[in-house]
């Protein structure tokens, strides 16, 4: 194994020292900063896990369709189940901060758009964050594209208003939202208040007649019925279509041999993704622990949302009209990306606090004081440390071709995220693990999108390959 160079060790140590100093100095200035530091250190752990486990949803479904490799989709499913165990425990203790999302076909469509985008971009929303930590310029461009697209999409009206069904407008206006919101102007506003909010909000526990917080609801409804069974079914499909045939390559293997051989083969497929599964387990524990810690800090400071923390720190800039800011209390990726560009656009004169996303729900606080932004930046830092310590850090400038794909893919992911009220993490991973059926709908769309994206990318790369091979005698 290659030894880690002194330079890499120094940089890794420098990153850890930097985040430590940020935490110590801000805490010594004001104890409320510990709330932001909690987000920071959980983000750092997420970044290390993601880089170690190569935890990328784009890779999971794309590699399955593009090169027939099920390794990552198996790892992601195992990680989802492990995270669901932790989530069930957190829910049963009554301190979960998770809320189910409205369930309808919109999640499938959102996932489809997102899925195509993540294949073009070369990484999902969280994957692009950790790859930025590896020094990948393409991934950084993807993040920029996701951020800008979201920030603009949530506020754009004009000709897009003409695409809004009249029933949505009518329903949105009837919600009695505060006057400061221009709900009748803006596609996303009318989509949210006029359509999405009218859809049922449920969980597998509730569908079976249990309360989420009850033992049966959390462990049987949400965990077993909502996660373990569907994940096992999905893995069995993957085994039958992608892994079973490869057993013929193994010594003494073959597709015959009956059910016993298939069980052995299925188990072999499951344990082939130890690295991703281990990362998933730590991610799951960290996500659950973050819910405990954030709730504990809220109780300690007597607040319900980080908006109150920011006010006590003397910053009321960018709070939503309810005095809140985005404060999920667990792992989330895309909303804070929209926020920092939203903040920048506002500084440039764009009036974007009259929409539901920024003005009513998430706010656009100064990125330097935005807890979720601290989490994302530290996530990149954590991934960088892990990449440096495994000799995988390398600055890579994007080529024109990849920059084009990154911008297109990032834009599609940005739109998909806002349509689905979350990305592969907030819209799928966290939702599925918490027994929200909307998460599976988003995942279904994401798989379909990945399939379509792979078809398009195959066509693109085939053309390039033909040109490249023409001079070789093959």
């Amino acid at each position, binding site marked *: 194994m*290659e030894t880690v*160079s002194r330079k890499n060790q120094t940089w890794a140590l420098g990153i850890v020292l930097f985040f430590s100093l940020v935490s110590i100095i801000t805490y010594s200035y004001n104890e409320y900063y510990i709330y932001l530091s909690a987000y920071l250190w959980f983000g750092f752990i997420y970044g290390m896990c993601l880089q170690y486990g*190569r935890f*990328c949803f*784009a*890779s999971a479904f*794309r*590699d399955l369709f*593009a*090169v*027939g*490799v099920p*390794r*990552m989709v198996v790892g992601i499913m195992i990680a989802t189940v492990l995270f669901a165990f932790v989530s069930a425990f957190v829910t049963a203790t009554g301190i979960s901060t998770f809320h189910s999302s409205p369930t309808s076909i919109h999640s499938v469509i959102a996932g489809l758009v997102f899925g195509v985008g993540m*294949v073009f971009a*070369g*990484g999902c929303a969280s994957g692009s964050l950790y*790859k930025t930590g*590896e*020094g*990948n310029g*393409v*991934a950084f461009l993807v993040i920029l594209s996701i951020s800008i697209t979201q920030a603009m999409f949530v506020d754009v009206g004009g000709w897009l208003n003409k695409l809004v069904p009249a029933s949505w407008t009518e329903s949105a206006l009837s919600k009695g939202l505060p006057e400061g919101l221009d709900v009748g102007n803006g596609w996303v506003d009318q989509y949210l208040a006029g359509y999405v909010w009218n859809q049922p909000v449920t969980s597998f526990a509730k569908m079976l007649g249990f309360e989420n917080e009850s033992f049966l609801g959390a462990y049987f409804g949400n965990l077993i019925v909502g996660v373990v069974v569907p994940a096992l079914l999905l893995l069995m499909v993957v085994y039958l279509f992608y892994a079973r045939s*490869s057993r013929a*390559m193994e010594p003494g293997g073959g597709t015959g041999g009956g059910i016993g051989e298939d069980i052995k083969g299925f188990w072999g497929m499951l344990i*082939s993704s130890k*690295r991703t599964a281990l990362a998933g387990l730590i991610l799951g524990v960290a996500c659950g622990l973050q819910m405990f810690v954030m709730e504990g800090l809220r109780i300690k400071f007597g607040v319900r949302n980080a908006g109150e923390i920011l006010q006590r720190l003397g910053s009321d800039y960018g709070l939503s009209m309810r005095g809140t800011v985005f404060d999920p209390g667990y792992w989330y990726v895309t909303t804070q990306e929209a926020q920092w560009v939203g903040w920048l656009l506002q500084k440039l004169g764009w009036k974007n606090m009259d929409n539901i996303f920024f003005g009513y729900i998430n706010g656009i606080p100064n990125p330097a004081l935005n807890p979720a932004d601290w989490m994302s930046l530290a996530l990149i830092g954590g991934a960088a440390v892990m*990449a440096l310590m*495994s*000799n*995988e*850090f*390398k600055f*890579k*400038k*994007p*080529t024109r*071709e*990849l920059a084009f794909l990154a911008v297109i893919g990032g834009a599609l992911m940005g739109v998909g995220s806002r349509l689905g009220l979350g990305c592969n993490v907030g819209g799928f991973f966290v939702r599925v693990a918490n027994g929200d059926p909307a998460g599976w709908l988003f995942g279904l769309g994401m798989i379909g999108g990945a399939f379509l994206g*792979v078809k398009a*990318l*195959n066509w693109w*790369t*085939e053309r*390039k*390959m033909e040109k*490249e*091979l023409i001079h*070789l*005698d*093959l």
Partner: protein
Amino acid sequence: MAMKVDKKEEGVYTLDCQGYVCPHPQIYTKKVLEKIKSGNVLEVVFDNPSSSESISAMCVKAGHDIFEKTNTGGKYVFSIRKK
């Protein structure tokens, strides 16, 4: 840098995918392996860490032999003998 395929010597080819992110290195590797003859060698050069696992898994599944793997400062070279 654009993707490049070259013939190094008789029966040995190189595929340089440096600068490319997922899924390009694994897709191009798969495509070149489909084109070259059985027993020929393909040296794949790439710098996208997550492609290393994907290419390895793909070769195991297809029965190709990766007989040498190196990682020098984030630059990977895999030597693959086609089944």
